[in-house]
């Protein structure tokens, strides 16, 4: 045994440990598989990010004649932070993102749980519940715009006919109700995503564990809380993060339904930036807004990656 280990030590010294570059070179063929993805990503991500940051320090003339831009330092940023609209829009964004994400998640979770047990018509019901997620947000916006219509909207008419109100409410034309009304539309489109993710997650909960818990005398609620729920924590984190990012970045529903109005009550960051850039042609300010947004998103992204890599680690251990 001694002789053998001595021999091993001598051979260990004989092997040159490779450095990273040598490994990269030896495995250069492996990179070919990811190269197309990386190239596309570089062109369409790295360049725009760089460009946006640069532009945010310039005053830009309308029409994007970039030769005429003027360096103004952080003026764009200070202008944004001191404007009243900025705080209004930020508050809207927070409400919009939090409410949409949480309610969509809870509804999706509930639907996934209710659909987990087999019953007659489950497949059809599941398919119907998923449809809103599949159809275009533009179509969804028009459908709900019609439903919310101040004169002929079906909800208002029903409320009047039931005697709850005297006149059809102005869902999306009044400052107080516009944001909640849009959130209802957003949730309508998004809860199916949470539902699908959690349905998939539910299938990974081992039946044996549930049965063991049942034998141990756990009630339905206890089984859910002690077995199912811990199993879903990974999926739930990823789902909530994906929803939060999607909501933070949403554009179509507020843009098409209200265009941010009335009086900025339904403007969120993205629609506001879009209007600044393409409506008022204030490219520099819009770019500065984008950079701020970018910083917030990167912070969220940090947690997103951590949640995903947490899953990855679990996977590797299994």
């Amino acid at each position, binding site marked *: 045994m001694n002789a053998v280990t001595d021999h091993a030590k001598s051979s260990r010294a004989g092997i040159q440990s490779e450095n990273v570059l040598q490994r990269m070179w030896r495995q250069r063929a492996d990179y070919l598989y990811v190269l197309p993805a990386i190239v596309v990503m570089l062109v369409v991500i790295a360049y725009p990010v760089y460009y946006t940051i640069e532009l945010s320090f310039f005053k830009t003339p309308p029409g994007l004649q*970039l030769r005429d831009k003027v360096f103004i330092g952080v003026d764009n940023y200070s202008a944004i932070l001191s404007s009243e609209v900025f705080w209004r829009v930020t508050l809207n964004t927070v409400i919009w993102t939090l409410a949409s994400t949480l309610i969509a998640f809870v509804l999706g979770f509930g639907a996934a749980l209710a659909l987990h047990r087999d019953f007659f018509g489950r497949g059809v019901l599941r398919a119907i519940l998923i449809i809103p997620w599949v159809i275009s947000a533009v179509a969804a916006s028009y459908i709900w715009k019609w439903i919310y219509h101040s004169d002929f909207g079906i909800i208002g008419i029903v409320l009047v006919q039931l005697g709850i109100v005297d006149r059809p409410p102005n869902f999306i034309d009044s400052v107080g109700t516009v944001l909640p009304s849009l959130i209802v539309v957003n949730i309508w489109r998004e809860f199916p995503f949470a539902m699908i993710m959690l349905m998939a997650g539910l299938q990974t909960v081992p039946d044996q564990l549930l049965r063991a818990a049942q034998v141990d005398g756990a009630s339905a609620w206890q089984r859910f809380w002690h077995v199912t729920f811990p199993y879903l924590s990974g999926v739930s984190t990823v789902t909530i993060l994906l929803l939060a990012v999607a909501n933070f970045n949403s554009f179509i529903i507020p843009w098409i339904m209200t265009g941010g109005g009335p009086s900025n009550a339904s403007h969120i960051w993205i629609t506001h930036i879009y209007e600044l850039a393409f409506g008022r042609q204030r490219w520099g300010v819009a770019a500065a807004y984008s950079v701020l947004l970018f910083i917030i998103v990167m912070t969220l992204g940090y947690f997103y990656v951590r949640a995903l890599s947490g899953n990855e680690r679990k996977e590797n251990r299994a």
Partner: protein
Amino acid sequence: MTSISNNQAPRSRRRIDGWRWTGRIFLVLMLMYTALPMIWMLLTSIKSGFAAMQFPPQWWPSEPTLASYQKLLDPQNSVGQDFLRFFWNSLFVSVCTTVLAVFVAVPAAYAFSRFTFPGRQFLFFAVLLRNMFPAVIFLVPLFILMRVLGLVNTHGSLILTYLTFGLPLAIWLLKGFYDNIPIQLEQAARIDGATRFQAFLLIVMPLSVPGIIATAIYSFIGAWNEYIYAATFITKNEQLTLPVGIQRFFSENTTDFPGLMAASFMMSVPVVVLFLLLQRYFVRALTEGAVKH
């Protein structure tokens, strides 16, 4: 012992029944929330413009008519011509995006699943991070980039852009799929005389078909429904895709709600049909890829 279990059985059954009824009521409410707006869209689309704006409303149209659909699908009049052209443009862009996304995502996902080259982890998350960025950040610079590349007002600009937002999830989904295919299958193939690429092409690819289908659906739906880039990159009427085309058209005809509902319905049909046909692959891909423990 027997008396205890006799006492407990009915009580726990009652409790389970309670949960089950809560679930059923919840599902009925969710079904109404989901389906009623879609049903109202369909009912409105088969009314005349006059019937749609009556008070009290006609719950069921007294004179159902397919006039709105005829108008949209008739190549003789200008509305139909536009609609059909938008439809074709959307189809073209979506199909191209889907095919390219599969071609790019499959090898990338495979590499992320199988190889251990340095930087693999970093690249993987870099690709996923794309999901995080809002479209609007990219809008201006990409518009300028497309101008430089001469792609403004071409479908190429849309396809290139859509590729990047479809890719991250596609790669993620497929990677999970490849993780589940035992590496021994490829090893066996390589010993049986296949090169590494042949092992991938002949053995692994056919096994990952469900994942590829899921990827394809996701890319197609994403491309079909996209609005903001299309609205920015395309200004010529004949190049517009459906979401933007319909928005432009009806912002000029604000009161034709039956027409708008018919167009919304027509726009939804391809993706809904596609998804309903292939949804089991999608759910399976999510189960095996994204959320596997």
